[in-house]
């Protein structure tokens, strides 16, 4: 049987809010090392990988490796019924077709019990190799969310360029163009407000903004976001989850159809 107990239940609520827009149904894989998920969006352009390590749970019991298929919208509805300070326990018997979520208020004066049906989901598992990146940007997650939101009001694609001067986000639309440059900024008082850029090689990639905006739903999970890029490879947008794991979004780039017209001005 499976029994996971998470004192900081709001983390699970935030995780579901961050991925449910991208993915409809997913298989949660539970093993002795942790609670994980890998799923693609319906058009197979983006990929989300979630890991919650077993050490991060107050109680983690997984008698054997199991996979639970869930509709993420339904799961989010269940978790909405938990208070932000509630302790969340997930239970499932071996071979069962339901999963139980138990929510306990901190003072234990209210205990809720929700049971959700599981699904059989035909899913594909992609192997993500360890890759070295040309450039890695670490910046406040709220800043990144703001940039994506601002640019999406101008155009539908974003060009992310990293040079020694900084990272530049550019878009172009019917009404004009927009450029946002963030310079490296390590002298601030709070480390989570810093923008750190590691660059081995200049990078320039184009991505669909609607996916980037979906990724930024994970902003409440972490103060900082890490963006890893290599030329001609998918971007990785990673949000740490407290001390117990991460949620990573992978997005395939766009190839310029006509280099002459859309080449960004470096």
């Amino acid at each position: 049987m499976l029994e996971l107990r998470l004192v900081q239940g709001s983390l699970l609520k935030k995780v579901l809010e961050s991925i449910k827009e991208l993915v409809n149904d997913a298989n949660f894989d539970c093993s002795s090392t942790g609670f994980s998920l890998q799923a693609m969006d319906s058009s197979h352009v983006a990929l989300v990988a979630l890991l919650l390590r077993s050490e991060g749970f107050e109680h983690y019991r997984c008698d054997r490796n199991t996979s639970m298929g869930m509709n993420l919208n339904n799961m989010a509805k269940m978790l909405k019924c938990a208070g932000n300070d509630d302790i969340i326990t997930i239970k499932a018997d071996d071979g069962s077709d339901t999963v139980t979520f138990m929510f306990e208020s901190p003072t234990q004066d209210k205990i809720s019990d929700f049971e959700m049906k599981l699904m059989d989901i035909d899913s594909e598992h992609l192997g993500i190799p360890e890759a070295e990146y040309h450039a890695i940007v670490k910046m406040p997650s709220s800043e990144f969310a703001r940039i994506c939101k601002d640019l999406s009001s101008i155009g539908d694609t974003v060009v992310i360029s990293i040079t020694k001067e900084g990272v530049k986000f550019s878009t172009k639309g019917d009404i004009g163009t927009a450029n946002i440059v963030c310079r490296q900024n390590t002298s601030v008082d709070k480390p989570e407000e810093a923008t750190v850029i590691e660059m081995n090689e200049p990078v320039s990639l184009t991505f669909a903004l609607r996916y980037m905006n979906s990724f930024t739903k994970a902003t409440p999970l972490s103060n900082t976001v890490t963006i890893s890029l290599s030329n001609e490879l998918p971007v990785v947008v990673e949000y740490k989850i407290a001390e117990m794991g991460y949620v990573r979004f992978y997005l395939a780039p766009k190839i310029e159809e006509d280099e002459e017209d859309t080449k960004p001005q470096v």
Partner: protein
Amino acid sequence: MGVGGNFWDLLKPYARKEGFDFLRNKRVAVDLSFWIVQPENAIKAMHVRKPHLRLTFFRTISLFCKFGALPVFIVDGSPSLLKSRARIARYFRCSGIELANLPVPEEGVSAERNRLFSSHVQECAELVELLGMPVLKAKGEAEALCAQLNSEGHVDACITADSDAFLFGAKCIIKCFCPNSKEPFECYNMSDIEAGLGLKRKHLIAISLLVGDDHDINGVRGIGLDTALHFVKAFSEDDILNRLHEIGKGNTSQIPICIKVEDNVDGNSPNRKLSHCSFCGHPGSKKDHMKFPCEYCVTKDDEGCQRKPEDFKCDCFSCDMNRKHKEKKRLENQHTIFFHKIAEEPNFPKDEIIDMYLCNDNGYFSASDSPHIVWGNPNIEMLINFLNFHQHWEPAYVRRMMFPMISTIFLRDMTTTTVETTLFGQYEFDSVERVKMRYGYQFFVVKWKRAGVNISCKVPLKESSVQQDDAIELDEMVDLLDDFDAPEIHGDDGCSFLLTDENMDLVGAAFPAEVKRFWQEQELKRIKNSTSRSQENEKSPSPNSRSIQLNITEFYPSTKVKHRQSKQGEESSKNADSQGNGGSKMKRKMSSPDKIPKSVRRRLLFD
């Protein structure tokens, strides 16, 4: 009870956990007493009216409808004299009364079981007969008749926890029956036991005679399961019972010794053990070995023999023969003790027990004609009267609980006859509602429509019916032993429906056109979902967008494919994606991996 001495533990490695469909369309002999004893032990504390009837009712319906089995119920006859004596002895031993006061039952008269238990059996037999199930009465043990039917091919398996059934000739026993799990049947096959343990039926009978069983509690004193097993395996099936007879008469000289010993043993060899050196342990004397090393010690010429190590064993010819002789003596002694114990037992082995196990005349039918095993339609009116009298169930409740059985029989009959089109004269097939997953297996949820309901009188009928059911539900305790799903009542625009879970093959055979239409609708739903999704992707394209979106699967290879059948009909549609601003033009181009440049492939470690 059955064979004593942890007999089931001996068979435990050969248990098979069988799945949900194991009993579908199989004839199964059920020992009715076993079903009655079980709930009385489990539900003593609960105040349930006649739990034996309740359990038999719901379990029969589960067996028939959910698992698709064809049960044959077997009722005990009169127990044998030997069993009566054994039962009385067991009772006296448990109660602490002296064995000297043991009453001797009169010749030819066997003690019946207690009257309360007999009346329970009678009530259950009457109930299952009203349900349309065949009921056979055994001359003696119910499991004996179960086993005989299994052996002769009239049934495919026996449901009993009594290990005696193998001794009576059963081929397949279902020991545990847990309707609430994914693998509800714990199954034992005689062929597995023969292959794994090398034991056939008569071997098992011999073991029970030695160890003890229902008919002779003690068996042979001093012989346990391991000893019996070791002895029994040494003989073939045809020989084993004859050997027991000869040993019982004391004719041990004719029994060949199991261990083959070489015949060239010299009679004088024990007395002619060579003297051995106390220093090195080899043949010879210590004085001689001080001067010259013996041939066994491999040393230089100028040194004497080596001191023998601890736990030294001499491997010269003389000592080897001596050890073999001792081993032979030990085995002979062991067998002598064994035979002596058997010979000491009075009247061993009992021919009555052997004849009982080997008898193939346990039922009231002759070998020329088959037993009367026919599954008919349940007698609804008599059932309603019976259950109203015994359980105080209302007629509406009985009909509702009976509905899965009626629907199953209806679906089966649809493939052969088309005489009747309604159930209870009220409900007819409406449609396949959806696919339902239970314990890892798929079922159709079938919708049954109430036929010919007058619109003017629908409201009072429905309300009174629902209220009645609600009132009855409160009185019913949750059954700890069995899971039973009553049909759902579903109201829709003035019509009332019942929903039952049915076997997919059964529905497919009965209503092939409906099932085909259902699958087509599912396919249309799937297409519609994907169409609406692609329409979202094709929202008003921006004139400046001339880039090609790549696919994530082009970069990361697939490592593990889980091909499990999607649960159809229950997938919720995706929420409309309102986050995209205007929506970008999406051209999904399925380019081959060769298009990816070499540097990219090298970086991804594809090579």
